């Protein structure tokens, strides 16, 4: 479903250079993995590459849903990438990424509306499962950080995507809420047989959630720049 091989992304030059190298990353439907590493190591960059919002610099292989993503980026096929994002991807952002002009129900339902999907009750069901059904009419600004993260999880899952990406979904939460949100997200993704990539600096939480962990390790190069490499599962 997702297959990356020798994908590189660099930013900056000289001592300000930061490079991310993904030697290999393959995910099957329903497979879940945690990407861990210290702040600034490139977890978000990896997720943005997987979310098709950041163009890779070099691609050995980058396939998603039988589509050559490297080729789409090279051909600047923004519409095709946007269509893939809307249909097959769900993204839980670090701080929720909710739209302030929509209430909770509107935020969760938006990916389905964009695809022209009828409301089959999945929005209410997800809200119920994530414990936010009593918040549906509220604007995001009226929610706690934990509630916002749950709404963000619900939005990422609402249209039953094949790949769910989560960028530090529990970073702003207390340990108890962090565990609840993480578990709720993983359970719903499992139900939908969606592959899941969770970027977190909280390795113990990832392991406690039963996720295989892949670390991003950094090294300083001769030019003073930094190269981060995604390691194998450990």
């Amino acid at each position: 479903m997702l297959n990356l091989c020798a994908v590189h992304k660099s930013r900056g030059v000289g001592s300000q250079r930061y490079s991310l190298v993904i030697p290999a990353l393959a995910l099957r439907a329903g497979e879940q993995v945690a990407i861990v590493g210290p702040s600034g190591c490139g977890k978000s960059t990896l997720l943005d590459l997987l979310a098709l919002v950041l163009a890779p610099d070099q691609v050995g292989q980058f396939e998603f849903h039988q589509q050559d993503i490297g080729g789409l980026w090279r051909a600047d096929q923004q519409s095709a990438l946007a269509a893939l994002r809307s249909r097959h991807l769900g993204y839980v952002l670090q701080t929720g990424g909710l739209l302030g002009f929509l209430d909770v129900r509107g935020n969760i339902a938006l990916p389905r509306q964009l695809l022209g999907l009828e409301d089959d009750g999945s929005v209410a069901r997800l809200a119920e499962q994530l414990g936010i059904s009593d918040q549906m009419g509220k604007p995001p600004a009226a929610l706690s950080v934990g509630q916002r993260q749950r709404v963000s999880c619900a939005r990422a899952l609402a249209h039953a995507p094949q790949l769910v990406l989560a960028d530090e979904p529990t970073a702003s939460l207390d340990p108890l809420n962090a565990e609840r949100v993480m578990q709720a997200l993983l359970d719903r993704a499992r139900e939908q047989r969606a592959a899941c990539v969770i970027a977190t600096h909280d390795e113990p939480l990832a392991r406690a959630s039963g996720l295989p962990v892949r670390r991003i390790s950094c090294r300083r190069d001769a030019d003073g720049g930094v190269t981060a490499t995604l390691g194998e599962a450990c």
Partner: protein
Amino acid sequence: MRIALVASLAWQDYRRDAWLSACSVLALAAVIAPLLVLFGLKFGLVSSLTERLETDPATREIIPLGGGRFSSALIEQLGQRSDVSFAIPRTRQIAATAQVGARVLEMLPTAAGDPLLDGLPIPKGLDQIVLSHTAAERLAARPGDLLEARFARQVAGRVEEQRTRVQVLAVLPLEAFPRDGLFADLALLEAAEDYRDGGAVPALGWPGDEMSAVEQRVYPAFRLYARSLADVEPLRVYFAGQNLLVSTQANTIAQVQSLSRNLSIVFWIIAGLALAGAFAAMLAGALAAVARKRRELSVLRLLGFSTAALLLFVMVQALYSAGIAAVLSAGLYGLAETGLNRLFVQVPGEHASHLLARHYGVALVAVLGVSAVAAACGGWRVARIQASEGIRDV
């Protein structure tokens, strides 16, 4: 792209930014409403003046100066021209008078289509007349009254006089003909002329010389009205080409047309400057909106919205402002129009300020068009928004 979804999202965002939205609406209304008032004044003033000219047939009258020699066939031909609404021969002015009671009235020939008698019965034959308002007042005559008209002549130093009874069919309104006058069938005027020329009028039993039947009658003048104000000047030019001097109201008409043209120039200069300012304001507003909503727009892009959909999002919000501003401006103009008409209008039916439904339509389309183009120019920066750039902060 789901246009309804984009429009709905744009409306919800527009409502959330109610204060900023209200500011953009007021900024637009501050341009549109004065323009509507200005155009309403220009249109109301000019249309009232034009209407005043158009409703007064005298403005369209073309009066031949000096004596001429016109056959009835020539005058009939003139009457059939597309730019002429009515033409009828006139007999010699010195012979075209009738004494009714103690008053000597000017006689004018009339027939169907006479613009002065618009809506009134047309006198036919030798025994029907229409009186002018002042003549009827002086004679204390009313429609239906029978009057005695007397016609005098001098034959070999001896004064002779004949009389005939005529019925007053109608009385003209004062504004149609402000002098003492009597409108009658051309036959009655020809009879008076023949009698004064010493001839006999067998139809009325008046004695005199036998008039030659074979000799074609020649008329010294005619009554002629142009079909519209715009036809007056071309007709003047036509008669000048025929070496016939005529008197027209062309100058008065030209003054109104010149006023209309000059006011139009002033209006379009002001409107052009104001619309350019509004365009710049809307362009700046769209640029500011894209910058302000960068994070939300990047989330929408992350969710799969295309560049066109994001551009539409910005444009639709500008159209909401334009639509509301247009309605608000129309309301403000309505208030201004009522006030101006109350203040300045003295003649019922005329307007100091007036707009037609099509003017509102054109204004709405213009405002929506300018807003859409300005928003598209300003909002084009959404194409540069990358989903990855704003999503870390929302």
